[in-house]
Each structure stands twice: as C-alpha cells, then as structure tokens.
C-alpha cells in the first residue's frame, strides 16, 4: 500500500498546482465576497424596514441555500476539470510508463491518484461549503439544519464525479472523457429539474424520467437530498427551485450512489489494470 500513498501524495501536489484549482478557489472566494456583500445589503434593508424575524430568517436562509447550490456546482465542475487529464493525459504523453513499470500493482497507481484528488476536493469543499455557512452564520445568524450531512453529500457528489472521470479516462482521451462526464452530469441535472417540475405539473412520467436519470447518474439526486435536508420550510416550498422538496431522494438512493461510486472506481481500476500503456 506504500505505493498508493506515494502516488496519492504526488497527485495531491500535482492537483494543487493546477491553474484550474486556483481559478476555482479564486471564483469561490469571489463568490463568498459577493455573497457577504448581498447579505450585508439585505440585512441593512431588513433593519431599515423592521422586517419580522420570521421573514428575515427565511429569506436569509434561502440566500444561504442559493449560495450553497452555487458551491455545489462549482465543486463538481472543478472536480471534473482538474482530474480529467490525470490518467488519460499521462497515458497519452507516456509519463505513466515510468511509473507503471515500478514494483507496484497498477490498482495502487489509480487508487493513489483517486485518493490524491479526493483529498484535494475534500479541502476545496470544506473551504467553500464551510466558508459559505460560516459567512451566513457570522453575518446573518442563520445556519442550515443539517450542514454537515449536506456538506458530506456534496462531497459524495464530487467523489462520484471523480470516479466517473477516472473510469472514462482509462478508456478515452482527455477531451472525450471530459465531454462524457460533463454530459452525464448535465443529464442528471436535467432529470432532477424535470422531477422538480413534476410537482407543478403532477406528471408521473416526469418523476419516472427523473428517477431513471438518477439511476444513470445519481449526482443531482445527492444535491437534492442535501438541499432537502438543509432547506427551511419556506425555501423547500419554492417551486422550480433547487431546494423544492417535491421528490426527495431516499436513503436507498444515497446507498445506490455510494455503490455506484465504488463500482465505477472498480471498473476503472480493472480497465487500467488490463489495458496497454
């Protein structure tokens, strides 16, 4: 297992040097500043109008949830974009050859890379997700009910995207892998919204489509569960929003996403093990 940790260490350092990570972190910080500014003006407005504490709490909580939703999108995209060339890029450039002939099984190489990126993504989610909650709490006194489980679900969504990116990049080029994973993420995103829309249209077929897309790619289901766990009743009642609790993914769906992640990782490891380098 030493090889896994050696690879994980250098992958973490390699990932931490990527411009896309710092761009995403910069965007995250910029976003937090924007969020803080919006909270500041909203609170000043509430103070001027002597808004009732109930309305004040609901609106500020909804603003925090919107911010967490943006963090979720940013984290998933950052996961895909930073990791997409880690395997396929090193295969096409030949960098992997000097590593793959060292005395360590190939699964340790892929596992090490996955762990390195997982550590980097965990730090990113902790900073941006935790930062958003921290700003909301310090400035507005609001905090989600289940912030920790919500954050863990967002992290699970990122790790799922990471496993899928690794899976495809053992087969395809960097560009193709990126397009496939972002395409799948888009599919899940679309399915999730269709399912939310079903609450308005009362269409059972839309619910079915949403469930099928969640089974194909359960990323959006994880966010919707996180949002349902964290949302206030007012935010949850907003139709066509990322927080509407029209169709809340069950514990079974979360378990399915975990199994999905491990299966994707296992298939990626197997294919990396048998393929020519």
């Amino acid at each position: 297992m030493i090889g896994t940790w050696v690879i994980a260490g250098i992958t973490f350092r390699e990932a931490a040097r990527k411009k896309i990570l710092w761009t995403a972190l910069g965007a995250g910080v910029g976003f937090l500043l924007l969020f803080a500014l919006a909270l500041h003006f909203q609170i000043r407005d509430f103070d001027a109008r002597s808004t009732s504490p109930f309305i004040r709490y609901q609106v500020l909580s909804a603003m925090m949830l919107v911010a967490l939703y943006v963090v979720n999108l940013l984290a998933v995209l950052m996961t895909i974009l930073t990791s997409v060339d880690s395997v396929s890029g090193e295969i096409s450039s030949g960098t992997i050859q000097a590593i793959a002939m060292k005395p360590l099984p190939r699964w340790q190489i892929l596992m090490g890379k996955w762990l390195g990126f997982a550590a980097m993504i965990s730090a990113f989610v902790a900073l941006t997700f935790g930062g958003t909650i921290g700003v909301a709490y310090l400035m507005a006194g609001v905090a989600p009910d289940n912030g920790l489980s919500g954050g863990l679900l967002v992290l699970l969504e990122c790790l799922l995207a990471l496993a899928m990116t690794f899976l495809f990049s053992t087969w395809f080029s960097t560009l193709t892998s990126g397009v496939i994973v972002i395409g799948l993420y888009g599919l899940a995103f679309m399915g999730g919204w269709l399912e939310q829309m079903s609450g308005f249209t009362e269409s059972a077929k839309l619910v079915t489509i949403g469930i099928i897309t969640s089974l194909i790619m359960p990323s959006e289901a994880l966010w919707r569960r996180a949002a349902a766990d964290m949302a206030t009743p007012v935010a949850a009642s907003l139709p066509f929003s990322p927080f509407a609790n029209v169709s809340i993914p069950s514990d079974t769906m979360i378990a399915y996403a975990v199994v999905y992640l491990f299966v994707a990782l296992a298939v990626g490891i197997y294919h990396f093990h048998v393929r020519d380098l």
Partner: protein
Amino acid sequence: MRKAYGGKVAVRNLSLAVRAGSIFGFLGPNGAGKSTSIKMLLGLVRPTSGAAIVLGAPAGDVETRRKIGFLPEHFRFYDWLTPAELLRFHAKLCGVAPAKLRERVPALLDLVGLTPHRDKRVGAFSKGMMQRIGLAQALIHEPEIVFLDEPTSGLDPMGRRLVRDVIRAQRDRGATVFLNSHLLSEVEITCDTVAFLKDGEVVAQRNLASFANSEVHVTAQARCLSADAMAGLARWTVSANLEGEKLSLVARSTEVLADILRHLVLAGAQVYSFTPGQASLEDLFVRIMGEDRGL
C-alpha cells in the same frame, strides 16, 4: 511473443535470449516493433500470444520489477519537480531505503552531469537534460537489468559519451543492459550482442566481438585479373566485384587475407594496392534490412 492491434501486427514473432551481464543492442528501422517489444518485456503491453521470462519470472511480474530499470523513449515527468525530488519519488516507488537515498541521489545527479542544475525545475530542462534525469531514475534502485529505449536521442556528443560510460559502468557492476537505439555507431562501440528486428521479427543476431573479427572489406588495385582468378576468390570471400582495375571484396575474416593476396599473385594478377577495412555495423544493418529501408 506476438502483438497485434486489431489487424495491424506490431510484433510478429519475437524470440530472443539475452545473456545476463551483457549489453544487448536491439536494432531495427522505424516501426519494426522495438518499443512494443520492450513494453511487452516490461509488462506495460500484454502480448497477443506468447510469453517472456525476465530474470526468471514472467514478464511484468510486480516483484521482479524491483530489479528492473527503464528509460522510456520520450521520458517526461511532472515539470514542477526538481531533479532530486523526481529521483526520490521514483526511489520510493522502488522501495529504496531513505538512508540510502541520501547518498544515492547526489551521486546519481553527479553521474549524469546534472549537479549544477539540481535546483532547477525539470520543466526548464532541455530534451537532453530530460534524457539524463530519465537515465538516473532508471538506475536509482541499482537494477539487475536496465531497459534503455533510445537513451542518446536528443543528447549532444558529450551527453552520448556520458551515456556510453554509464552503460559500461552498469555492465561492470554485473547488470544487464537492453539497449534500443537508432545510433548504430553508438551500438557498435557499446554492445556485446545485437539483434536485428524487421517487420516485428528477429531476423539476425550477432556477437559484436566475433563480428569485429569477421567480414573484412578489402579494396584492391589489380591488373591482369582473370575470370578464373575472380571465381577462385569465392573460397575466402562473401562477395567480390571487379570494376576496371578496382577490386572490391568482402573477406570472411582477417585470417584469410594472406590467402587471398597469395591467390591473386599466383593467378598472375599485378596487385598495386590491397587495403583491408572493417565492415561497419551500418553495412551489416543495411544488408540485413535491405537498401530500401530507412532508419
């Protein structure tokens, strides 16, 4: 071993034995399958059929790779590492003890002439410097066999000489060197044995020590050379050709040169000059591969 990618056969019938402790040259034109062959021996590429034994274990065996070093044809690595960091990373993967690394890393940087550049990032390295650091990573764990795929490509004459010295030093410490190179002159002065790969198949294998004592090219100036005298040369020569007074022949060895000269004189030829010259590896390569094959 055989390797096919779909309908395209990269290696048709690779069959060779490499003596432990020797420097083995693997020669062939572009596309002959040299790199694919090396990758199969390292376990990077799975053969379509057949198998190989490397250091007593099936090719690709994880534990055996602890005794194998490899310099890929185009060595690349994370460009933000310093050469010492790069070596330490590869050494860790090979299980080299940290205490040993403290001596080994500076010694190897010195060996490949990169000590003055030890604080640079490898991203700032020239192609030749990358080859040097690639060579150092292949040797970091003192392997029993080193596979070098075009180690001198991109190197200046000083760099090529350094690689030659490093290769000989490996043999001197008892390691086997498997050298894949286009530079026949380099191979000729470095290798003990060479194998020629053509269209994915080993078509010839030569011991260069005995090759040096065989097949001598001779250029002579002679008059009154009869057809019978020319025919009689076949006993000692591979080929003989007369154009006017210029006689060109390839003798089987230096030992028959006196017999050839005596034969010509006794046959009544007037010999004005008789100049033997060694056949080069390039001559042999061209003869085996055919004139129409480019390197």
